[in-house]
């Protein structure tokens, strides 16, 4: 053990109670930092998992057309959206070819064509509007968590029944329908009868209130859209590459391609703000501990001027003296961080067991936490910066003491 660490350890005992208070503050600060990050990240992670499991990582919709080329067309009528200087023709005209091209992207793991449109639903209690999604069941299962979202009924019933429907839970409740009940959909002036095969719940209230899945051919027929698709829903292996992949796809495929990060930007910003806000709030505990640490070390410097001078007279350099005080901070920091990690992990586990029912942007019946080593490193870094800053000033002051002045002052 270096002489400086040995002296630092002994000096710590001089202010044991104050040091323990600082240590406890760091333990609480680090622990609460970890648990708040675990919660906010956990809910954020769960939200991302939910949206990826419902709407996929990437959506390709609306082909892009050059403005001048559109202007010089032969006058036939197009439905298009005008955004900035690009014209978007709604829908995907050649979904099969587009899917083939998309499949070339390394990160893509699944592609599903979707035809969608608005219908009027007649239930036993009331009528309501809904959005039907025409899908190939095997394709949509590759790009969503639909199989895990079924809460009543069975997916196989839907698979084998061409007129079967998968109905969102909130919509089913509003309409007063259950699995096996008949249901009537009205669209484009025609009315057709179906049967509820299963009821699903994504946890996203907007989706659960208005979405109905049906077989692709039946949907085309109902909406009278024999060709094309409304959009392609795509799953990827690495979700964090979705933005780059989407930009690349948009560039090469001339379609509007939206990654999940852009689609859910608002909620992601809310989660980010919550995470930063909670980190800042909890960091004040660490900050207060740092102030306590500063006070204690400053007191030790004042009380130990004679000892510092005698160490200097023995040949301990200014750097050694500074290190002795920095080590005191470091020792408390290391102890506080390790105990804080254990404390943080324990409360994170405890919180994950707390029941709480949340519906709206996702569905959960208990607190969701994320276990990430980065939370522990971030807590340790925050505590490290605060404690070492708090130790630096007293350490510098101790190092600047002139031994001659101190000894002269006490010996004359």
């Amino acid at each position, binding site marked *: 053990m270096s002489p400086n660490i040995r002296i630092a350890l*002994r000096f710590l005992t001089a202010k044991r109670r104050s040091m323990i208070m600082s240590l406890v503050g760091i333990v609480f600060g680090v622990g609460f930092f970890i648990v708040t990050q675990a919660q906010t990240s956990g809910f954020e992670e769960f939200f991302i998992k939910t949206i990826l499991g419902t709407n996929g990582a990437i959506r390709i919709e609306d082909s892009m057309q050059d403005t001048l080329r559109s202007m010089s067309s032969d006058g036939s009528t197009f439905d298009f959206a005008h955004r900035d200087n690009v014209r978007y023709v709604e829908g995907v005209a050649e979904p099969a070819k587009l899917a083939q091209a998309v499949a070339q992207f390394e990160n893509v793991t699944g592609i599903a064509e979707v035809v969608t449109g608005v219908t009027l639903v007649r239930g036993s209690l009331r009528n309501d509007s809904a959005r039907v999604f025409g899908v190939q069941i095997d394709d949509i299962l590759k790009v969503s968590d639909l199989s895990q979202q079924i809460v009543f009924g069975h997916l196989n019933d839907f698979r084998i029944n061409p007129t079967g429907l998968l109905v969102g839970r909130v919509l089913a409740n509003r309409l007063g329908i259950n699995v096996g009940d008949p249901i009537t959909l009205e669209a484009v002036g025609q009315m057709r009868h179906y049967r509820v095969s299963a009821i699903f719940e994504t946890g996203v209230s907007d989706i659960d209130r208005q979405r109905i899945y049906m077989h692709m051919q039946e949907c085309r027929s109902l909406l009278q859209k024999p060709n094309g698709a409304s959009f392609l829903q795509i799953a990827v292996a690495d979700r964090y590459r979705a933005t780059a992949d989407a930009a690349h796809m948009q560039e090469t495929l001339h379609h509007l391609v939206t990654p999940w990060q852009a689609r859910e930007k608002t909620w992601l910003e809310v989660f980010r703000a919550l995470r930063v806000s909670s980190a800042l709030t909890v960091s004040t505990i660490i900050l207060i501990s740092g102030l306590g640490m500063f006070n204690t070390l400053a007191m030790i410097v004042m009380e130990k001027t004679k000892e510092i001078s*005698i160490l200097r*007279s023995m040949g301990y350099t200014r750097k050694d003296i500074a290190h002795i005080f920095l080590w005191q901070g470091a020792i408390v920091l290391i102890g506080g961080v390790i105990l804080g990690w254990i404390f943080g992990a324990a409360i994170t586990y405890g919180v994950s067991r707390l029941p709480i029912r949340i519906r709206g942007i996702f569905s959960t019946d208990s607190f969701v936490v994320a276990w990430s080593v980065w939370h522990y490193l971030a807590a340790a870094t925050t505590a490290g910066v605060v404690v070492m800053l708090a130790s630096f000033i007293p350490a510098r002051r101790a190092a600047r003491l002139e031994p001659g002045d101190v000894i002269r002052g006490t010996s004359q």
Partner: protein
Amino acid sequence: MNPASASLDLAISCIGVHRYLGTGEARVHVLRGVDFEAERGKVHAIVGPSGCGKSTLLYLLGLLDRADAGEVWINGQSMSQTDDLARTAIRCEHIGFVFQFHFLLPEFTALENVMMPMRKLGRLSPEHMEARAQQLLVDVGMGDKSLRLATQLSGGEQQRVAIARSLANAPAIVLADEPTGNLDQKNSAQVFELLCRLARENGQAVVLVTHNPEIAHRCDAVRPMRDGLFI
């Protein structure tokens, strides 16, 4: 003149040292061109009334302070151009201090206090450091109390431990500021005898500041001081 060339026996010397203390109207000319030299193996006493500049000179000789003018030589090497790091290294290796109020580190045992300069110098293995520290404590009559904390020792005992500590790195020079000033007559005599014996045995130059004429009289050389000058 380089005092080293004058005599190889000189461990420490100074020429024309001036030192001012305080600022503004409180500024005092404490040392007014002092010359001093100390030979190896001899005990030198600096005597004089309080405030005459004895301790200030001692701290300048011990490189704990810097002169406003003049030169200090340690083992023939001029200290005037050395930086703080070099002066600290010289203190560690060549100078041992004994202060009036012993200044042991209270959180450490007598043995650990004596080992502290050795740990800084880092020349010996931990086992050798401990053995040497124990031997030094035996030499000063504290062998049986080596594991006691400094706070568990009497004033005289602490001063003896401080002497052992000052000798830890076998320095060429031992500077003692009123080493017996805080002790009763019996302990004063013991501490002084100890310093003299060790200095002669080890060939060290001992410079001590004292008010005690009896002790000064028994030193090899006595330099009376008044108003910042030797008389």
